[in-house]
């Protein structure tokens, strides 16, 4: 009746609630990093479902995040006070906005999932990338969403509690799913699609499900982001943002949720550490220069990782050498 994972989830949620008021008092810079870690965990854990467990290569996660961010921001801006102005009413409206963001993103995930039935590998990668560009392009041309100017003025509802509560929920859902019959289905599609189909697994269903769920979580993450930064811009959800999330999944190890969460945290902190290092006067000049060009370091890290440890830091072997 009380599974261990459920108890852990409840404990984490309560801990987030208790800690939230204290955490929000810390240095705003650290607070900002902390919230970004939570949002990136949601993004990476969701993408891991698609790229890691189901073996589909999606390069358009930022597009789903954009869909969620804009949908929730639009709802908040238009109907944020519709339920009243008390704390409870605005909080309810905020959670509803987040879910709307998730649902809109999930619908766009469905749109991408359907062509994915016919395409695989590199073709799928380019189509998801294309969808990312299309979503961005539609937003850039939509006047009600601020078009090229971006959208601002949302109330800052996102707190430590909401971010990490949703991060915990995401991780819980992904882990529960992976341990269930569905998880076996995802893994079967990844390991050998033809064999899976021959065994009577509805590969279509699993692929679309992975896309829709991954997109839903990305939408939630987008909503949290929009209500934290209070300003969103189409260029913030470009191809590079998608690559960022992909790198988190790969570094953590495709198909290892714990690894992916650690990688999301590491890769959020790393740029800030490098920024700090680049400003320490006592260090040699070249080291400062290296730290300043964090993207060079980042890309080298990616190449070296693939050459030496393709299963990621914590991965179990989704990308292990194939036997001929």
């Amino acid at each position, binding site marked *: 009746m009380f599974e261990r994972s459920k108890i852990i989830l409840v404990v984490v949620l309560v801990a987030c609630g208790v800690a939230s008021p204290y955490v929000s008092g810390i240095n705003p810079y650290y607070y900002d990093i902390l919230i970004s870690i939570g949002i990136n965990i949601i993004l990476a854990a969701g993408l891991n479902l698609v790229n890691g467990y189901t073996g589909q290569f999606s390069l358009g996660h930022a597009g789903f995040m954009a869909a969620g961010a804009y949908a929730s921001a639009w709802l908040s801006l238009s109907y944020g006070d519709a339920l009243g102005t008390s704390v409870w009413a605005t909080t309810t409206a905020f959670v509803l906005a987040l879910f709307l963001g998730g649902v809109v993103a999930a619908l766009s995930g469905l749109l991408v999932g359907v062509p994915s039935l016919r395409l695989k590998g590199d073709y799928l990668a380019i189509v998801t990338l*294309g969808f990312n560009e299309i979503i961005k392009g539609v937003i850039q*041309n939509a006047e009600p969403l601020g078009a090229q100017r971006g959208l601002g003025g949302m109330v800052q509802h996102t707190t430590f509690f909401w971010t990490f509560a949703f991060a915990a929920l995401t991780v819980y859902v992904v882990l529960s799913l992976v341990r269930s019959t569905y998880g076996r289905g995802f893994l079967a599609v990844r390991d050998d699609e033809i064999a899976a189909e021959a065994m009577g697994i509805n590969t279509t269903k699993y692929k679309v499900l992975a896309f829709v769920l991954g997109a839903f979580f990305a939408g939630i993450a987008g909503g949290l982001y929009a209500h934290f930064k209070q300003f969103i811009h189409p260029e913030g959800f470009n191809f590079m943002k998608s*690559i960022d999330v*992909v790198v988190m999944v790969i570094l953590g190890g495709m198909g290892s949720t714990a690894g992916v969460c650690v990688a999301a945290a590491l890769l959020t902190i790393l740029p800030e550490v490098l920024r700090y290092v680049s400003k320490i006067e006592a260090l040699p000049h070249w080291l400062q220069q290296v730290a300043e060009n964090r*993207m*060079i370091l980042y890309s*080298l890290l990616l190449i070296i990782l693939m050459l030496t440890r393709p299963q990621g830091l914590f991965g179990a072997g989704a990308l292990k050498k194939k036997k001929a």
Partner: protein
Amino acid sequence: MADKLLELLQQIINGLSQGSIYALIALGYTMVFGVLRFINFAHGDVFMLGAFAGFYLGPKTLALFGEGPSYPGAIAVLLVAMVVCAAIGIIIERLCYKPLRERPKLTVLITAIGVSLFLENGGQFAFGADPKSFPEIITDRLIEIPASWGRISELTITISQLLVIGITVVLLFVLTYIVMKTKMGMAMRALSFNPVAAQLMGININVVISFTFGLGSALAGAAGILTSIQQPSIDPLMGVNAGLKAFVAAVLGGIGNIPGAALGGILIGLTEALVVGYVNPTYRDPIVFGVLILVLLVKPTGLLGASEREKV
């Protein structure tokens, strides 16, 4: 009526010259895919390096052919950039892709993304992130069409536009000759058809793969120079968008298929020009990707691609 026709003709000419550039880059994607079955994401950045090779080595090369811009000088700059890019392409393959040849494609694809990010950011570090102005290697001017030709004389066609289209056609012929008539080309086709059988027939696949990377990268280098003649402002991130569009072109035409890449490039160039001319420039990228997705939904292997059966 005549006005509209004239405008359409103008857009088609603009589209053709932009499409030629895409076609040249797309050929590199497609050839590498043909022999290795993976997408070299860093290819667009080799195109950028071609432009910078012209920027740094161009003035000196040009000076060998006398004062100021000249056509022989411009051709020499083009060849220098092609050689530099071919070398870079071969080095990238040897260092980053060769050790991964037996690994799953995803590993190689991610490595390619890493190489691409490295070239972009390394480029910003080495060349500076601000746009540079490309040296004038030919004197660009409008072509004066005799007024006796009627209203066609109202078209604006520049020398550089014609040059881009002309050089692309020449390079396409050279490429077709290499692939269809030479021994190396035959080896490339054999490798693309069946790598194991090709090896058994005594083909040294390392040499062929290096050659393919060199050839594709040289074409990207040529595209880098040609695009810089038209738009003399170059920066280390110029390969991102061009590379992406060329990749779309290669997939649209059927990746792995050489005429398909050329066709796809021209189609993407034309689509872009028509969208910019008749719809709205901000819709350019979404429409290009929309066309790609539609084509893939109807024909998942692209316009000219042959469908491949998966062997169990």
